[in-house]
C-alpha cells in the first residue's frame, strides 16, 4: 500500500508538474494572420504601389453616372413609378450620404499612395503612380465641391481618433479648386499621352501602363471640366451658395486653355467609324478602346464576358433602358433641333402639338435625338419576353448605351465600358468657355467644336442638321449662348451632365419646376390594353407642376449629411436653407 502510494503519487505529480512547465511558454500566444496581407508587409516595391494605385480606378463613375440625369428634367423612372426627390425638390437632409463618405475614402487612398511612395525608390513608374493618385484626389474633391460647395480639405492620411484633422472645418471652395488644379497640372505633366499606352484588348499593356489608365489628356480634360463649372459658378451665382469675391475669367480661361491643349496636341478625334450611326455606335461595342475610338479619353472598364467577370457593371441596360428606369422626357425631345437647325417654336418643321402618330417626333430631327431614343418598330428586347420590336407606348425610352443586341436576355450582365470622359465634351467645354469669356465665339471656333459634332452626327450631311454660325444665329433670332448650351445638352444627354449643367447655369430654378411630360396620347392607338393615363394639353403627364419645385435659396447646393455634422464637434455647418 505504501509503496503504491509513493509510486503513483510520483508519477502523477511529475505529469502534473511537467505539464505546467511545458505549457508555460507564452510565445504560443503570439499569433499573426497567415492568410491576409497586412499593411506592414506591403508597400515595398513599385509593383505594390501600382496595386495600391489600381484601387483608385474603382472610384471612376460607371453606369451610376447616367442615372444622375434622373435629378434633372431629362429623365424619369417610368418602371418603378417613383419620382426622384432631387428632381422634384422633395428630398430631406439625409443622415448619411455615400457621395460624401466615398469621396473621402478615395481621398485617403490617394493620399496613402503618395505617402507610401516616399519609402519606395524613385523610378518613372513611381512618378506615374503619384500622378494617377493626384488625378483621383482631384476627381474626388471635384465631385465634393460640385455637390456641397465648401468642403474640408484633407491632404494626408488621418491616423485615427486622436488626429485633429478629423475635425477640419469646411475649406473655401476656391482653395479646394486651386488644389484640384495643382493636382491635375502635376498629373498632366507626369502622365503619358494616350498613344503611349497600348490601346486595344488585343495588345496587352505592360503592368501599370494599360488602356484605361489616366493620360495627360484625361488630366487636362478634367481640368477643363472643373474650370468650366467654376467659371459658370462665379459668373452666375452669388449668395447664398457663393459668398465672397468672384473671378469667372480665371476659371473660364483655365477651361479654355486646358481644352485647347488637348485639341492642339491631336491625340483625340471624334468617332466616325460607323458612318451615319457613329453617334449611336460610339456607346456600343464598336466604340470601345482607344485603338478603335480616339474619342475615348477615359473609360471605366468592365472586362470581357460573363465567364470572366472581373467587375460587374450591374446590368445597366435592362432595368434602366428597356424597363425605363432612366427614360427620356418631353423636355429632352423638345430641346432637340429640327433638321434646319432651328428649335421648336422657330422651325417650320416643328411638330409640337401636331403629332399624328408615334413616329412624328422623329421626323426631321437632330439625328442624335433620334439615335438616343427608341422608336416604335426598333429592334428591342423587353423584360416580358422576346418581343422583336419596340411597341406602342406613351413613354420615351432612351437607348444610349444599349448594345443593340438582346444580350441581357441570355446574360445578366453586359460588359460595355462606360466612357467617363470623351473628346466631344472637351470641344463643348472649349466652345462654352470661349463664349463665356468674351460673350461671343468665332465661326472658326464653332467649326472646330460644335460643327464637328454636327458633322459627325449627320455623317457630313448638312441637310440632316444645319451647321451653326454667327450669321445663322442672328438671321433666326437665336441666342448663341442658348445654342451652345443646347448642343451640350443634346450631345451629352443621359451621360450624367444635365443636372449639374442646370445648376451651374443657374437655370435649374426655371427648368425643374416644369411638369414632367411624356408623349402625345393618341386615342386610336393600340397601347396593348393599358388604360388611359393622366394628361396635360394632350401629352401624358407624369408629374404635375404643383408637385415639383426648386428652391433657389437652397437647392443649388446639396445638404451635408446630418450625421456628419453631428460627428464633427461643431466644425461642420449645414448649407444654407437645409434643415
Amino acid at each position: 500500500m505504501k509503496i503504491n502510494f509513493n509510486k503513483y503519487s510520483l508519477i502523477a505529480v511529475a505529469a502534473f508538474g511537467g505539464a505546467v512547465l511545458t505549457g508555460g511558454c507564452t510565445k504560443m500566444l503570439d499569433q499573426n494572420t497567415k492568410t491576409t496581407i497586412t499593411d506592414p508587409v506591403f508597400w515595398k516595391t513599385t509593383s505594390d504601389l501600382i496595386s495600391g494605385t489600381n484601387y483608385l480606378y474603382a472610384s471612376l463613375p460607371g453606369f451610376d453616372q447616367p442615372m444622375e440625369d434622373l435629378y434633372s428634367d431629362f429623365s424619369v423612372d417610368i418602371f418603378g413609378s417613383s419620382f426622384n426627390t432631387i428632381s422634384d425638390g422633395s428630398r430631406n437632409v439625409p443622415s448619411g450620404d455615400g457621395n460624401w463618405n466615398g469621396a473621402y475614402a478615395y481621398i485617403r487612398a490617394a493620399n496613402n499612395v503618395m505617402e507610401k511612395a516616399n519609402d519606395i525608390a524613385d523610378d518613372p513608374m513611381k512618378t506615374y503612380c503619384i500622378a494617377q493618385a493626384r488625378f483621383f484626389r482631384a476627381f474626388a474633391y471635384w465631385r465634393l465641391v460640385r455637390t456641397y460647395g465648401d468642403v474640408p480639405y484633407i491632404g494626408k492620411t488621418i491616423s485615427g481618433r486622436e488626429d485633429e484633422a478629423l475635425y477640419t472645418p469646411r475649406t473655401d471652395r476656391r482653395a479646394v479648386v486651386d488644389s484640384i488644379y495643382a493636382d491635375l497640372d502635376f498629373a498632366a505633366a507626369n502622365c503619358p499621352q494616350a498613344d503611349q499606352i497600348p490601346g486595344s484588348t488585343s495588345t496587352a499593356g505592360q503592368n501599370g501602363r494599360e488602356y484605361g489608365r489616366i493620360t495627360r489628356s484625361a488630366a487636362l480634360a478634367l481640368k477643363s471640366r472643373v474650370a468650366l463649372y467654376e467659371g459658370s459658378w462665379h459668373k452666375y451665382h452669388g449668395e447664398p451658395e457663393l459668398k465672397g469675391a468672384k473671378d469667372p475669367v480665371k476659371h473660364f480661361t483655365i477651361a479654355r486653355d486646358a481644352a485647347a491643349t488637348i485639341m492642339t496636341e491631336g491625340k483625340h478625334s471624334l468617332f466616325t467609324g460607323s458612318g451615319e450611326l457613329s453617334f449611336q455606335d460610339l456607346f456600343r461595342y464598336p466604340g470601345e478602346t482607344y485603338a478603335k475610338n480616339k474619342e475615348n479619353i477615359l473609360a471605366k472598364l468592365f472586362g470581357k464576358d460573363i465567364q470572366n467577370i472581373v467587375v460587374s457593371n450591374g446590368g445597366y441596360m435592362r432595368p434602366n433602358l428597356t424597363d425605363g428606369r432612366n427614360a427620356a422626357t418631353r423636355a429632352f425631345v423638345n430641346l432637340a433641333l429640327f433638321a434646319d437647325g432651328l428649335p421648336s417654336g422657330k422651325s417650320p418643321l416643328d411638330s409640337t402639338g401636331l403629332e399624328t402618330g408615334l413616329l412624328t417626333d422623329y421626323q426631321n430631327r437632330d439625328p442624335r435625338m433620334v439615335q438616343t431614343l427608341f422608336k416604335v418598330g426598333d429592334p428591342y428586347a423587353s423584360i416580358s419576353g422576346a418581343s422583336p420590336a419596340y411597341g406602342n407606348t406613351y413613354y420615351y425610352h432612351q437607348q444610349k448605351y444599349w448594345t443593340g443586341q438582346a444580350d441581357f436576355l441570355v446574360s445578366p450582365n453586359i460588359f460595355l465600358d462606360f466612357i467617363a470622359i470623351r473628346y466631344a465634351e472637351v470641344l463643348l467645354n472649349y466652345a462654352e468657355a470661349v463664349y463665356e469669356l468674351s460673350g461671343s465665339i468665332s465661326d472658326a471656333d464653332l467649326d472646330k467644336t460644335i460643327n464637328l459634332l454636327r458633322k459627325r452626327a449627320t455623317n457630313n450631311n448638312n441637310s440632316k442638321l444645319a451647321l451653326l454660325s454667327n450669321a445663322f444665329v442672328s438671321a433666326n433670332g437665336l441666342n448663341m449662348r442658348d445654342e451652345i448650351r443646347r448642343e451640350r445638352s443634346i450631345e451629352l444627354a443621359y451621360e450624367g451632365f444635365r443636372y449639374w449643367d442646370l445648376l451651374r447655369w443657374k437655370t435649374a430654378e426655371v427648368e425643374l419646376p416644369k411638369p414632367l411630360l411624356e408623349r402625345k396620347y393618341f386615342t386610336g392607338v393600340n397601347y396593348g390594353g393599358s388604360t388611359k393615363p393622366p394628361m396635360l394639353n394632350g401629352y401624358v403627364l407624369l408629374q404635375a407642376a404643383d408637385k415639383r419645385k426648386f428652391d433657389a435659396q437652397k437647392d443649388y447646393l446639396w445638404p451635408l449629411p446630418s450625421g456628419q455634422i453631428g460627428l464633427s464637434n461643431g466644425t461642420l455647418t449645414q448649407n444654407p436653407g437645409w434643415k
Partner: protein
Amino acid sequence: MRYKKTMLGFGPLRLVVLLKLMFLLPMFAVAQTGPVSGTVLDEQGKPIAGASVSIRGSSTGTITNNEGRFNINVSKNAVLVFTFMGYETLTQNVGGRNEITVSLKSQTTSLEDVVVVGYGTRSKRDVGGAVLSVDQKLLKDRPVTNTLAALQGSTPGLVISRTNGQPGREGISARIRGITTLGGQNAPLVIIDGIEGDINALNPNDIQSISVLEDAASASIYGAKAGGGVILITTKAGKVNQKTQVDLNTMYTFRTPYARPELISSRRQGELQNEARKFAGQNPDFTDEQLGWFDDPNVNEVFNTNSKAWDYYYNYNLEEILMRKQSPQRAINLTATGGGDKSTFLFSMGYLDQQGVFKFGPDQYSKFNARVNYNTKLSKILSFDSRLSFARENIDAPPVGVTGEGLMYGVYSIRAARNPIFTPFSEDKLYAFIGTISTAYPVLKDGGYDMEDRYNMNGVFSLSAKQVLKGLDLKAVYSPGLVLSNREVFNKTVPRYTIDANKNPVPGSPLNQTNSLNKTRPFNITQNFFATADYDYKLKDHSFHLLGGYEFKSYKYDYLQAIQRALLLNDFPTLNYTTLPQADVTNVADNIQINTWLSYFGRLSYNYANKYYFEGTLRQDGSSRLAPGHKFQTFYAGNIFWRLTQEAWFKNALPWVDEFKVSASYGTAGGAQTSSPNSNNYDFQSPLSRGFYPFNDSRTAYFYQSNLPAESKAWEIIQTTNVGFDLEVIKRKLRLHYDYFIKKNNNVFVGQQLPALLGVTPNEANLAAIEVKGWGVTLSWNDRFKDGGYFISANLSDDKNKVVKYDGSVTYNTGINSAIPGMSTNSIFGYKADGYFDTPDEVNSVPRRTPNTTVGDIKLVDVNGDGLINQGINTAADHGDLVYLGNTNSRYVFGFNVGANWKGFDVSVLFNGVGKRSVLLEPYASLAFYDGWRLPWAIHQDYWTAENPNAKFPAIRMSDRVNNVESSHWVQDASYIRLKNLQVGYTLQKKKHNLKSLGDVRIYFSGQDMWEKTGMWFNYYDPENTDRITFGYPLWRSYAVGLNIGF
C-alpha cells in the same frame, strides 16, 4: 421520524418474520438458494407497487405487488437490484437474510444533490449563489433537434431565441443575464464534460445534467470566456455494478409550418394594384376585363397585339404549390449502460432526420450521433475516463439563401401568382422566363443544391488519481476535437423560355447563366489540456478545499475553398471539367485562423461547520486574440454564504424551514472573446482588402486599407455582484431560489463612429461601459400522492442594461441604436406616429417630413415643435424628432411548468414567454407596393380609406416612399406566451406486461410550440424573430408520438 413510523407501522409483521427466521435459520444455513421476501418502500415509507427486483448477473427478477411485497429465490450471497422509475437504483447484498426491506430515494431529489461546478462537483448544500441546475424533465422526449431549443423557458436568466425554422439552420442562440458587450456575441461558454464544446453537435439524449453558472463567483474559474455565463453539461455514464440496461427511444413527429404570410388571388392583387396606382395619381394597370381574366381558368395568356408579347393572367398560390402542409421528423435513440466492479460504460447512438417545408428540392436535415463513455479503475488510486463522441450532421438546402430577398421572397412576394411557372404551350416542360418572375419553383426543382456535411469528433480523456496523499486528488485531462466540414454549393444552369407570337418557345435568360460548383472544406482542430490538483483538509469544524490548475488550449481553423465555373456538363458537378480557358484567381482561397490560450487558476473553498462558507477564485488568462502587451489578464471572485438552517437558534425558531441559505458574491470574468473563433483573431493587425480592376480585360489586383487596426485591443472585464437566497420548506416540497445581480463591463470593445473624413472604417477599441441589473426567481413545488406525484415550477427573470459610458462619438439614427449613453443597448429610435392624415386640412395644418405626404399617410409628430420633421444632426443635443420607441432586448422572461403522474400516466405542460420586447418591422418589406413587383398579402387589404380610417396600413400607394420611414407605426409588441411543450404519456410497467425480455415501455404524445399569443399586429412573423425580419423561413408546430422501450 421515519424510523419510528416504520417501527410502529410494521412492528407486528416484523416480529412474525423474526420468529420465522429464528425457526428456519438452521435450514437456510446449509441451503445454497432459498426464498427471500421483502418490501420496497418510498421515502415516506409507503409501499411501491411495480418496482423491479432482480438478481445481479442473472436474468431472474420479479415485481413488487400492490403492498410493495416481493418473493424471490436467491442464493445467500446474491446481490439484489431494486429499480423503479423515478427512483434511484438500489443494490443490496442478501447476506443470508430472507426478509429485506428497502426504501428507494426519489430520483429528482437525489440528482439535485450533486451539482456540477467549474472543474468539479459539489453537494447542493455546499453551493451558494447563482448556480442553477436544469430540471432533467425538460430535456425528456422533446421533438427538438437542438439542446438549446429544449432549454427555452427552463432557467431564469437564460434566454434562448430562434430566428427561423430552416432545417439545420434554425439560428438558435443563447444569452445569460443580458447584454454586457456591443458587437460581440455575448454567448455563454458551453463546457461539456469539462471541456469547451459544441452544444449543437451534442445528442440531447446523452445529457446527464446541465448547470448554468450565472454569477462571477461560479463562472470566474473559467475566466477568459465566462463573461457571458457558463453552461456546464455532463454526459451520462454507467454505474458501478449495474446490470446492463438498454433503452430504445423512437419518436415520430409531424410538423406544420406557421408564421408565414397569407397570400391572395391574382385578381385581388390586381385590384389592389389598381388602387395603388390610383392613389399615386397614375393610371390603373388592369381593365375590368383583364381583372376578369385572372379569375377565368380558361384565360391564362393573352397575346398583346401592341407589344407583340404575351400577357399572363394566371392565378397561382406558390405557398400551396411549393410548401407542405406538414413535414415529418423522425428520431431514434439507442442507449446501453452498465458497469462491473471496476468499469462502467455508456454506449449510445442516435439518429434524427427532418424534412423541411418544401415539397421538392433539397430541404432536409439529418444528424447521427454516437458516444462511448468508458470509465475504469486502474488501481485503488488511479482511474481513467474516456468520453468519445461523434456527430455527423447533414444539411441539404436550396442553392440560394432562403431569407431576406431570397427564396422565401420568391414564394411570398414577387409576382408569382399571375405569371406562369412553365412556358405556356410547353406542356409544363420548359420553365418560363418573364422578367420579374419568381424563381422559387425552378430553383428548388432544378437549380442545384447547398449541401453541407459536418463531422464532429471529440474525445475527453482523463486520468485521475484519488487520495495520492491524504486529501489530495490529481487529474490530467486531454481533449482533442476535430470538426470537418464539407460544403458544396452547386448552381445549375436552368434554361428558361418565353414564347413568340406563334407560341414557339424562345430562349430567355436562364437561371445561373454560368453554372458553378463551390466546394469549401473548413477544418478545425481544437486541443485542450488541463491539469488540476484538489486538496481537502478538515480540522474539526473547519473544512478547506483547495483547487489549483493549469490549462492550455489551441484552436486552429483552416478553410479551403475551390470554385469551378462554366462546368462542362450541367448535371455533373465536379471541379474537374470546365469550358473556361483560364482559371479565375478567385476560384481558390484559404483562410487560417489560430488562437491560443494559456491559463492558471486556483480556488479556495472554506466552510465552518457547513454553516459559513467562503470561496475565492483566481485565474490568469492569456490569449493570442488580444493585442501585444494586452494579452494577459487576471480574474478573481469571492463568494460568501451562510446556511441559517444550520444554526440551532434558527432551527428552533423556524423548524418548518428545511434550508435557508443567503449568499453574496463579487467577481470578474472575461468577455468579448466569445465571438466566433473563426474571426477576430487578428484585430490588432492592419489587413488590406483586395479587389480587381479589368485592365487588359483580365484580373488586375488592387489593395486598399478598409479599416484601421485595433492596436490596443484589450480584455473586456465583466464584474458581477450577486446576492441571493435559497429557501426550502415543507419537507423540501416548496423551493425558492432568488438572485439579484449587477454586472458591469467597463472595457467594452466596440466599433466607433468617427467623421467620414477619416476615409476608412475606424478601428474598434475598448471605449464603452455597460451596466446590467437584474434578478431571477425560481419557485417550485413537488409532492407525491398515492401511485403518483405532481410538480409545479415557475421561473421569471429580468435584466435591464444601460450604456453608462461611450467614448466614441454618439449618433442617433432611425432603427436600432446600441451605444447611446444612458440608454439600453438595442434601443429603437424613430419618428412618433399619430394615426393617419384623414383630411387635406389636417395635412396642411402640421409639418410633414416630406412634401409628398398626403391624406391616408402616417402622421408623424413634430416632437420638438420646430416646425420640421427631421432627425436634426443626429446628436444627443439635437436629434430632431427621433424618439425612443422601444427595445428589442427581452424583458421578464418566464417559464411555467406543471406536471403530474399517476399509475403510469403522466402529463406535463410547459409555457414560456417574454413579458416585454419590441421589434421594428422592416418598413419597406411591410408595405404593400414599395415596388411594383412586391405584391400585397391578405393583411394589406386593411388599408386606410376615408371609410376605414383606423386601418392597419396607410393608404395603398404604388412605390410608397413616404411611409417607409421608421416610425412607431412599424414597432411591434413582441411580448408573447407560448405553449412550449405538452406531454401526455403512459408507462406500461414491467409487472403489467410480463414480457420477460422487456422492461418498462412508455408511449407518449409530445407537442411543441402548439400555441402562442403575442402582441404583434403584423402576425405573419413569430415574435421571437429578430428585428427587421423580412421574408423568413416559417417556424413549426410539432406533434410527436414516441415509444420508449427498456430492455
